[in-house]
């Protein structure tokens, strides 16, 4: 499965990187285990955990009934006892069934017990549209969790990031919602075989550019990078900032980039209203970057509609490369 890229580095897919992070952490720490629906012999709905059952057995690769509330509760309770569960929720949409345990228990226990307990758990949630699975299997619900103190939210965009961030999330002593975009599972990129971690709350500038900052995460990072390639031909240089984790959010890197470019387009798949983009826009507006802005802060996000089934409608519901190109081009000219 592994390839060697042009630069001689090993390349694997995003999906394989998720699996490798779990395997390496489970080998390293006996308190780490995976639980979820069909994660055993089936390998999970997307095949992420394929092979884990053979290596770690049914106790640590624990198949559950269709019981998202109990899955989240079992993870919360095990974490309260000091274990490090990874709960896979088959589709992020189904995390709504887990919400009571995640929002009222996992997120609150440490605080309401006066800091005398912690909940080191990860909820892996395949998210996003583009698969034709329609309104109940395509959501990106990160904004819901952004508003819950006690929870961290991670949304990686590359194979390299997903491995390092998952390892960090497993080692983190708090509940982490770990969004994996389904369309990214097949994306390939260089990933070291060694264990490494990427700190949460540290953005990465995925492409440097002088004219306009694009803040994008998850699937919108490769789309923004492709848009940047197209606009570079026109002489417009985008700087693509990937926060990688939304909570904690690396405000400093975003603000620094906007100070440099004076223009910012925030791009995400989830619906625009009440979304992450609004929060990032507010962070920028509240910062020293405000004085550097040459144009209004712009958002390009999902429409306020459920994800439709029809391919054309589905594409229209969330930002595509051409939408980013159009929006960025307009913003680059705005006020000049």
């Amino acid at each position, binding site marked *: 499965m592994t390839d060697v890229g042009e630069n001689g580095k090993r390349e694997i897919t995003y999906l394989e990187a998720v699996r490798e992070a779990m395997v390496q952490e489970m080998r390293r720490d006996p308190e780490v*285990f995976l639980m979820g629906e069909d994660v055993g012999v089936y390998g999970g709905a997307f095949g992420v955990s394929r092979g884990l059952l053979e290596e770690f057995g049914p106790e640590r690769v624990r198949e559950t009934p269709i019981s998202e*509330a109990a899955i989240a509760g079992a993870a919360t*309770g095990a974490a*309260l006892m000091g274990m490090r569960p990874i709960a896979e929720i088959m589709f992020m949409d189904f995390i709504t069934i887990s919400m009571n345990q995640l929002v009222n228990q996992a997120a609150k226990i440490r605080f309401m017990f006066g800091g005398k307990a912690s909940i080191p758990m990860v909820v892996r949630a395949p998210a996003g549209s583009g698969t034709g699975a329609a309104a109940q299997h395509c959501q990106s619900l990160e904004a819901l969790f952004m508003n819950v103190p*006690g929870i961290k939210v991670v949304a990686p965009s590359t194979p390299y990031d997903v491995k390092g961030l998952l390892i960090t999330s497993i080692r983190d002593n708090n509940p982490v919602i770990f969004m994996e975009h389904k369309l990214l599972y097949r994306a390939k990129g260089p990933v070291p075989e060694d264990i490494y971690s990427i700190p949460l709350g540290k953005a990465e500038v995925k492409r440097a550019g002088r004219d306009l900052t694009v803040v994008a995460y998850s699937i919108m990072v490769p789309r923004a990078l492709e848009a940047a390639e197209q606009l570079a031909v026109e002489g417009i240089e985008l700087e693509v900032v990937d926060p990688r984790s939304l909570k904690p959010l690396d405000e400093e890197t975003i603000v620094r980039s906007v100070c440099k470019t004076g223009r910012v387009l925030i791009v995400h798949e989830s619906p625009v209203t009440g979304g992450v983009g609004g929060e990032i826009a507010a962070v920028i507006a509240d910062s020293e970057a405000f004085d550097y802005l040459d144009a209004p802060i712009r958002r390009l996000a999902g429409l306020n509609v459920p994800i439709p089934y029809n391919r054309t409608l589905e594409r229209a519901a969330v930002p595509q490369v051409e939408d980013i190109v159009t929006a960025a081009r307009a913003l680059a000219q705005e006020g000049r």
Partner: protein
Amino acid sequence: MFQSRNEEDDVVVVADVGVKAGSSLAVAGSGRLLDELPREKLAWMLQKMCEIRYFEEKAEDLYVRGLVHGTMHLSIGQEASAVGGASALQPDDFVIHHHRGHGHTIAKGADITLMMAEFLGKEPGYCRGRGGSMHIADIPGGNLGATGVVGSGIPTAVGIALALQMRRSEQVLVCFFGDGASNLGEFHESLNMASIWKLPVVFVCENNQYGMSMSVRRSTNIEHISTRAVSYGIPGETVDGNDVLAVHQVVKAAAEYARSGAGPSLIENVTYRWRGHSKSDRNLYRTPEEIESWKERCPILRFKQVLVDGGVMDAGEAEAIDREARATVDRAAEEALTFAEPSPENIEDEVYAP
């Protein structure tokens, strides 16, 4: 030991659960247990029941005097359920419980001064004033906390028990919840999951007859909540929740069943809360006669009588325990009232663990 009642033909079904048989003992076993339990243990049980009663009365008194910020859910009348359950455990076993949780906390051995401090929102309280009445936890004492959302401790209990099982621990967990919680989807998911994995947890439903104002007669279509155990293939038993020895005996059997690796069980303690659901309750959904009829079944008076009749102690000794419990609670409240308030300066410190 574990039985369920089939309503239609009134046949008592005794499940083969590998523990000592004797289905009637659980309900009317007081006399026999008196011989089995040491006097110190019985005296301790009475002491804890009295401490719970006086803690609740003190809480109410402090509230009336305007010294309490939030609401509270008092467990007066339910003392036997908490003490019978907790006393059936080993010291290093665990409990997780619910918003009406002062009793479980005291029964699990919490420091009453630190509890009172938490109730009053003070920094030295168990949760440093962040949790309050509905979230008291004493982690080192094996009290994994009260949860304020009805039923929310049940799925969490599955995880606690899962950790115990995966670590090959000998410890078990008792998960207390109310009749109202048994109608939640989380209840079903959790008991099913715990049963398929044979987790070391005892689910104790404290059926106090009402979920706020909703009578269990209107909220469920079964006579005994414990019969729901049948759906999960686990033992279920209904017990007189105002008989502390009966509760002790059934929970003890269930705890040892869990400890042996046989899995969870569902106990229903039939009891009654004397006070309203919370401070907003005007008791419009039940009659004074009904409340009085349950007060006649006061678990503390009953236990005192059993102890005296059984020759464990004389009435004077029982009253001495009672007086000391009241004094303990009074001292705790006096001291806790002098404690410092938390400071908003570090309000965000405990949101995330380092």
